[in-house]
């Protein structure tokens, strides 16, 4: 499992080149800055269509939306043939590209246990095209395709549990992270980087534009997601060994997180309670896994 680091151990070297064209306060831009700090320069980055986040000082290639998994596979196999197995092969993709459109190809790479690192900059919708609903969008969130009106209360379904789905592929490493917990995020990237095989890191990256909050609050929102249990931080080895990385004595009420964001402005007390119930229930299940230290299936 990853080893805790302090802020002073975070590498000073920056792998991103700025100013780039992401919005003010973009969580995904910060996710890129932090993740590539940990990956270092000996990395090939793959992109698929998504928001611009941050340009990195790495060789970078762009590919088909549907083919995120194939794209990194090809690069890894070529490096292997060239005897350059020291190079990290990274797919830095949006949640649309990981949870939905590119899922089949990334699932294929996971099953084959390709030596690649898939990092999802998860802003919980298709933001580059204006904020359409994705498999990562939480229930009740307003997006441009799940509006709020007399016939609709935002997204009707709950989000897809993609980190657990990848864990169930039995791959060497799966973890979640948040831009508000940068040392945890960096430690996880550093740990994943040292493992041979398929790695998946899902980084919650708040989007002030699509989630509708002031750009100064990106970290506040990302932090509350974790402190309320809405976005738990955990890691899973070989689809079995399990650890929660952030375990407060008591979770904050989920309303504190929801109330900061315009995409949840319409929620009734009853809907907030419904969300609270499902968050608490899931959190208790994770606590049990953490206690046993294993996923027993």
């Amino acid at each position, binding site marked *: 499992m990853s080893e805790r680091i302090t802020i002073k151990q975070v590498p000073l070297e920056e792998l991103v080149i700025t100013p780039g064209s992401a919005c*003010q306060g973009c969580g995904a831009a910060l996710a890129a800055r932090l993740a590539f700090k940990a990956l270092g320069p000996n990395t090939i980055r793959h992109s698929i269509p998504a928001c611009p986040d941050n340009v990195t000082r790495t060789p970078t290639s762009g590919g088909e939306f549907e083919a995120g998994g194939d794209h990194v596979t090809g690069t890894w196999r070529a490096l292997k043939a060239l005897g350059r197995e020291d190079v990290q092969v990274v797919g830095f993709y949006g949640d649309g590209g990981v949870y939905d459109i590119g899922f089949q190809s990334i699932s294929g790479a996971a099953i084959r246990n390709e030596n690649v690192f898939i990092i999802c900059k998860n802003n919980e919708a298709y933001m580059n095209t204006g904020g359409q609903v994705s498999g990562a969008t939480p229930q009740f969130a307003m997006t441009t395709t799940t509006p709020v009106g007399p016939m609709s209360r935002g997204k009707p379904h709950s989000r897809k549990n993609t980190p657990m789905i990848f864990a169930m592929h039995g791959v060497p490493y799966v973890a979640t992270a948040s831009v508000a917990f940068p040392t945890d995020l960096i430690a996880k990237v550093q740990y994943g980087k040292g493992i041979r095989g398929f790695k998946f890191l899902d980084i919650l990256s708040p989007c002030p534009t699509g989630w509708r909050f002031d750009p100064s609050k990106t970290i506040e929102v990302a932090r509350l997601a974790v402190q309320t249990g809405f976005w738990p931080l955990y890691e899973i080895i070989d689809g079995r060994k399990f650890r929660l990385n952030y375990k407060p004595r008591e979770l904050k009420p989920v309303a504190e997180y929801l109330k900061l964001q315009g995409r949840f402005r319409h929620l009734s007390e009853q809907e907030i309670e419904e969300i609270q119930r499902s968050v608490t229930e899931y959190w208790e299940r994770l606590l049990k896994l953490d206690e046993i230290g294993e996923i027993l299936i």
Partner: protein
Amino acid sequence: MIEVRLHGRGGQGAVTANEILAEAAYYEGKYAQAIPMYGTERRGAPVTAYLRLDEVRVRERDLVHEPDIVVVLDPAIAQRPAILEGLKEGGLVIANYPHPPELYPLGGNFMVSTVDATAIALETLKRPITNTAILGAFSKVTGLVKVESIEKAILHRFPGPLGEMNVNAVRRAYERTPMPIQARGEVRKDEEGPLSGSGYGLIRSAAGWRTFRPVWDLDKCTGCRICWIFCPDNAIGWAEEKPTVDYRKCKGCGICVNECPTKAIEFKREGI
């Protein structure tokens, strides 16, 4: 036919302002056409929108290339000569600018009026969203659309307290906007090139994106590195155990200000 071009930044509501103007004109029996510039509009990045107003049906379907009026929602963009591109001789500029039109920095054969729409937005909406305030200025200076029609369109779009706050912004701007004068500023070329806000990759500078600028009081700084680690745009450097800032990279998001545990960073309005 009157053709208008609006310039703003993603998040200031230029596209909405444009649509509200079109709706207000429609209430007065006019024909109107509101066109947003297609592109991925990033919050903070320059945004353009176009409007046509006429007594008869508007047949054109093109973007506006030679506007009669240019409306600028952002004080930093208001100082960029690129906003004058294609403006008709003797045309009109209505700018969100914190000083009277006599001090407006651009010159040429055009009329100009200014209003501190950012200050009005901060007073009324508590946020620097300047789109509705500038409409009050538009009504006052052009007389093309009555202020009552603008208010009606705003309340239709934002019913309730939000609408009332915006109506307040419109009224204050209407009262405070002076009549236009002949532009007295400098005639010069835009060194930064055209105003383009969409796209990928690197930009020349993010300086113009800011409404506020973070300013450090290093005496209060404990060297905790929190501002440094959370800056999405890598604008904060680290040297001799203290933060440094590169204002060419800073977009003015305010994360550093919000996160500093000792309140060593202050947010100051740009351009005044």
